[in-house]
């Protein structure tokens, strides 16, 4: 490490310790914010000191879980610099690399908007691109805008780097066209397909000619086996595929992983088809980094829920299931998983509207809450925009007398637990900042470990 970087690093570590000592959360991004402000080039130098290089993961949905799954696979044989708390902006990544003395490999989830800059600065060995859904239009702009930034970034990626991409997502798969080193993954089990595209499906039109795609199977949002009848553009051949997918309620899902050099049966301890996609992304990324298929299967089986994403904890005689919701596609999958696994009688749904949640709350109207509303007994709505949720649910026909507004999150959690019978489980669906606050409450009560200790670590 050069002298300037060493000085910056030690100053930054001190800031992190002060931040934690002052009770200001994990201090995960403060040191990086400082260094990033003083010297953005520090990120280049920090990445360059990792002997096995850097792997980056980005997507609208699933980047935290994918990265946590990859960590579960890779951490046995490598020391990782991994931003497990989800601090995925340049400052958070700088913090992670600063704190990871002695790490061999950088395993980093990256915000989709800052991905181009992080790719430029860290010269990654592998870049894994999971999906693009509409998300926080007030911050990211239209999906097409993010896709265009990704196209430019991928065009500038060194030819020796491997691009891992989701073949089932048309604009993402298109990024691999014409590249040599690519690994494409997708789902291959038409039995698990949906009847059709969902209300809020994005990217319904051919990336080549604009004609609507025909789906032989639509799995999650617009992800699936698509083809264009006008120009012939279609899902590319899969290097990795998930087949024979068997859901196991809310407890998990198993599938056969077909990889270039063999197949393995994998049982995930988290449910949902979207987690099968996350597992495929993590498997592809890990294989690209030299992991064996056995390591991949074992790592995926060891994996437990990532930070706030299908995380479970116990509160006395009741269980709590924490399910982050942050955009229509992600929320739809969380809800579909609940619906298939059995909707708990009581739900707490919490909507905040800070920058990290999206200030524009209109997205809740694009979420297909209806099937869960039909089965839910009582719903407690909470957060800064609780009234908007109440309107969303009552205009969908949910009875007003089974809906409660409890603005304070801690009170809402307690009210939800009160409404849940002993031995039962309460489902809590918060947006990002509400999730952070609820986890902090749970941690303060000794129900979960604080996030900077690494919830998803094996």
């Amino acid at each position, binding site marked *: 490490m050069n002298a300037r970087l060493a000085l910056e690093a030690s100053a930054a570590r001190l800031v992190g310790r002060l931040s934690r000592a002052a009770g200001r959360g994990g201090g995960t991004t403060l040191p990086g914010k400082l260094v990033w402000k003083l010297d953005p080039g520090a990120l280049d130098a920090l990445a360059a000191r990792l002997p096995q290089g850097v792997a980056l993961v980005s997507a609208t949905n699933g980047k935290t879980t994918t990265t946590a799954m990859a960590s579960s696979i890779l951490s046995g044989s490598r020391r990782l610099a991994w931003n497990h708390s989800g601090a995925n902006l340049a400052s958070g990544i700088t913090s992670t690399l600063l704190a990871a003395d002695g790490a061999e490999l950088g395993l980093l989830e990256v915000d989709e908007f800052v991905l181009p800059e992080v790719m430029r600065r860290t010269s990654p060995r592998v870049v894994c691109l999971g999906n693009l859904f*509409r998300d926080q*239009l*007030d911050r990211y*702009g*239209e*999906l*097409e805008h993010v896709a265009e930034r990704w196209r430019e970034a991928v065009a500038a990626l060194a030819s020796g780097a491997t691009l891992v991409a989701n073949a089932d997502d048309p604009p993402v798969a298109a990024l691999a066209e014409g590249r040599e080193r690519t690994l494409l993954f997708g789902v291959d089990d038409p039995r698990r397909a949906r009847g059709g595209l969902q*209300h*809020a499906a994005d990217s*319904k*039109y051919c990336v080549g000619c*604009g004609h609507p795609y025909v789906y032989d199977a639509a799995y999650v949002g617009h992800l699936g086996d698509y083809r264009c009848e006008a120009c012939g553009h279609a899902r590319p051949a899969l290097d990795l595929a998930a087949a024979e997918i068997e859901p196991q309620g809310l407890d998990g899902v198993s599938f056969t992983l077909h990889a270039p050099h063999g197949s393995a049966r994998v049982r995930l301890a988290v449910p949902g088809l979207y987690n099968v996609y996350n597992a495929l992304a993590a498997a592809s990324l890990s294989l690209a980094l030299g992991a064996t298929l056995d390591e991949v299967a074992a790592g995926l089986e060891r994996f437990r829920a990532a930070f706030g994403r299908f995380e479970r904890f116990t509160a006395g005689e009741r269980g709590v299931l924490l399910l982050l919701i942050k955009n229509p596609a992600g929320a739809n999958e969380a809800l579909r998983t609940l619906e298939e696994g059995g909707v708990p009688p009581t739900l707490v749904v919490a909507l905040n*509207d800070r920058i990290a949640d999206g*200030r*524009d*709350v*209109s*997205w*809740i*109207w*694009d979420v297909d809450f209806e099937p869960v509303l039909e089965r839910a007994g009582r719903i407690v709505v909470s957060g*800064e*925009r609780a*009234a*908007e949720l*109440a*309107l*969303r649910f*009552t*205009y*969908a*026909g949910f009875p*007003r007398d089974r809906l409660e*507004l409890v603005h304070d999150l801690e009170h809402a959690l307690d009210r939800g637990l009160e409404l849940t019978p002993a031995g039962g489980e309460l489902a809590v669906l918060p947006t990002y900042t509400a999730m952070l606050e609820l986890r902090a409450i749970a941690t303060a009560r000794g129900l979960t470990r604080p996030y900077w200790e690494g919830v998803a670590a094996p």
Partner: protein
Amino acid sequence: MILRVGHLYPEYLNIYADRGNIAVFVRRAAARGHELRVEEVTLGTPLRPGAHDLLYVGGGQDREQAMIAPDLAARREAIRAAVDGGAALLAVCGGYQLLGRGYRGRDGSWLEGAGLFPHETVAGETRMIGDVLLESALPEAPGRTIAGFENHAGRTVLDPGAEALGRVVAGYGNDGSSRLEGCRVGRAFGTYLHGPLLPRNPWLADLLLSWAVAHATRGAPEALAPLADELEAEAHAVAAGRARSRGGRPA
């Protein structure tokens, strides 16, 4: 009574929760004993004269909007005839732009609109994004406020003498400088406000519904019976507060 709604291009124009506005129409009509029949009007579907009491046009991503713009522009006469015939219309965001004379892109390109609203839109360098609060400019609703969220690169300039939907209390509005928002022609409104617009501004939904009823009965508009609207009032108050504390600042 049956109210016939024509929802234009729902497959293409649905970016800002447009179905929330439709859900509000459906449920508030039902609360007054009316049944809403929503018909999809999309590429290639005719817009039959007199077939709808209420038309709805939402917003889309640029790519989707470009796909339907020529089809919408070609319906110029049909849309004008519907509004002249007393049908109600609500257009939000992209639909609001495309119902004007046209849209001038950054590259100088011209996207022809349907020409219902007397305005033109020019693409700006930055997007105007944030919470908005308006004071109604409608003679039917003096003193009312409208709270929503805006996210648009287009600067929409009303012709001199054109009627706006409201005056901007907080936020950017049509163009970030005129302090006007939206446009009104007869029983047709266009606005940049989503959020969606109607759940937290239910009086606006009721006004449009009363016009749709008048169209269906060929009678004069009568105010609908009031509903409790406590949740709506709270959501409105929170959104209005957001606009005052963090809405865009016009030039």
